[in-house]
């Protein structure tokens, strides 16, 4: 896959951080069209950027031949976003507590902690054809 592909309810990108801004534009525009509050849009955009970074680096090991699929579902009750990679799975929670004093100067390991502070649910499963599927839900 050479470039991002737009789906009816999402976007698929090659595994490169080069496409983070493409995903961000897609997600922020979709949420704005749905009338979501600006501050919530930023929280969700930050969360999606964390998940896509994880999917590229830890899931797909930056293999450009693999893809990351982002799907959105916006209803009157909630926003639901799923991020699916094509890797062999990774333990998304396998990081030391980032707010423990001895870990404060670590440069990495805050992504999931930040997402959990922004959303109501974070669910992790295996994708239908393998890979890690992370779903975040924000109530409206």
């Amino acid at each position, binding site marked *: 896959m050479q470039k991002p592909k737009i789906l009816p309810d999402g976007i698929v990108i090659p595994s490169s*951080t*080069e496409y*983070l*801004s493409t995903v*961000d534009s897609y997600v922020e525009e979709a949420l704005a069209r749905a009338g979501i509050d600006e*501050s919530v849009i*930023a929280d969700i*955009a*930050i969360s999606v*950027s*964390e998940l896509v*970074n994880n999917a590229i680096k830890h899931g797909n090991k930056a293999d450009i031949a693999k893809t990351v699929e982002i799907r959105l579902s916006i209803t009157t009750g909630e926003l639901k976003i799923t991020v699916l990679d094509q890797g062999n799975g990774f333990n998304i929670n396998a990081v030391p507590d*980032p*707010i423990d004093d001895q870990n*404060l*100067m*670590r*440069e*990495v*390991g*805050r*992504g999931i*902690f*930040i997402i959990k*502070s922004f959303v109501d649910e974070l669910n992790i499963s295996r994708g239908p054809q393998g890979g890690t599927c992370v779903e975040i839900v924000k109530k409206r």
Partner: protein
Amino acid sequence: MKLNYREDKGAVIIEPKGKIMGGPESTELHDLLHELIEKGKKNVVIDLGKVDWMNSTGLGLLISGLTTLRKAGGELKLANVTDKIQSLLTITKLITIFKSYDSVDEAVGSF
């Protein structure tokens, strides 16, 4: 993210713009800090007033910058921290690590 910098009263003021989310351009800040240290410029203010938001990669860049400058005998300070970034610094307790100021002038004057 776009990156400009200028100098004032012996300090370097770096002015990133946009969103700091971990794209290929993220290494620019890291490279710039090393370039400045090589030139003997170790007191740096990062003006965050025009940064829409950042994620954990952006926070990691700030920590890396702080560590790098302190090892070289300098310091990194933050100015014009927006509400969104202030909230991230609070959630992650990094508010206890960084010195932040309401304006660039205040930050520059603090060295």
